[in-house]
């Protein structure tokens, strides 16, 4: 299990997240269309839009059925690390990564080997979750794909806030 890193502004971040009233809501087909587009653009089998609450990672949408669940424990998630930074968080081979080699999503389930996530940063500066792409094979994002992922994440958070 990963030690859960906590952002310095965690309390206000959680308030901002909860004020969106989007946790525990029904799946929205529009977000599914967006994650499907991200998968297509970056040519990965799985992509997901996640929100990181106090103890839970909410999977608001996913394409490719990677996680196959609506939520996971925060301390098991890759995206808890993504929200700690503004740059893309990339794990090229999870089996070779100390934080993830024993993750239930790596050794079981979707058997994730590759993860790259871009932070969903709200307009008031809180890192609420991530737009991420995953693969069951090790890989590395190209510069073009990094740009696509960042731009899509910016657009997705705007849609969430609107």
């Amino acid at each position, binding site marked *: 299990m990963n030690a859960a890193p906590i952002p310095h502004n965690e309390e206000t971040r959680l308030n901002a997240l909860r004020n969106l009233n989007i946790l525990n809501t029904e799946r929205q087909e*529009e977000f599914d*269309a967006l994650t*499907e*587009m991200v998968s*297509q653009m970056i040519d990965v089998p799985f992509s997901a839009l996640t929100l990181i609450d106090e103890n839970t990672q909410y999977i608001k949408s996913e394409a490719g059925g990677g996680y196959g669940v609506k939520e996971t424990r925060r301390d098991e998630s890759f995206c808890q690390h993504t929200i700690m930074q503004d740059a893309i968080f990339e794990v090229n081979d999870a089996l070779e990564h100390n934080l993830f080699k024993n993750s239930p999503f790596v050794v079981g389930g979707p058997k994730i080997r590759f993860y790259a996530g871009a932070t969903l940063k709200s307009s008031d500066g809180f890192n609420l979750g991530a737009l991420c792409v995953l693969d069951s094979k090790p890989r590395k994002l190209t510069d073009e794909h990094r740009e696509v992922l960042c731009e899509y994440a910016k*657009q997705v958070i705007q849609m969430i806030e609107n």
Partner: protein
Amino acid sequence: MDSKHVNVKLINDSERQVLKVSLKDFVPDQDFKTIWQTVEDKFAKSTVDALLLDCSDLRVISPTSQTWLVEDWFIRAKHKFDAKLRLAIINAESFFGIAVVKNLSNKLASVAGNSPHEVFQNENEALTWISQ
């Protein structure tokens, strides 16, 4: 036809009949297929020379719908109505809408054969091309 997702109307140009389909906001997959069934019905009932697909207010459609439109609906319509059907697309203004139009254009290029299609920034440009 006018709904929260689409407006469909026939434009009677002096030389051509143009069916204008304006997509709006996010169009769910099931609604998308219903819209295009309506468009197909209108094609069957009139002598349409060209299709004007206005995506300027489109937010997004899923890749599944994009593929279905080109590889299923468009190919069927081409065979059923006119192999030389002209398709003019007015580009979207939203980020994801622009990506959708780009995808559609790329997919069309691979299946359109002798049915010309082009993407334009506004309706005037599109209608000028259609009337040529």
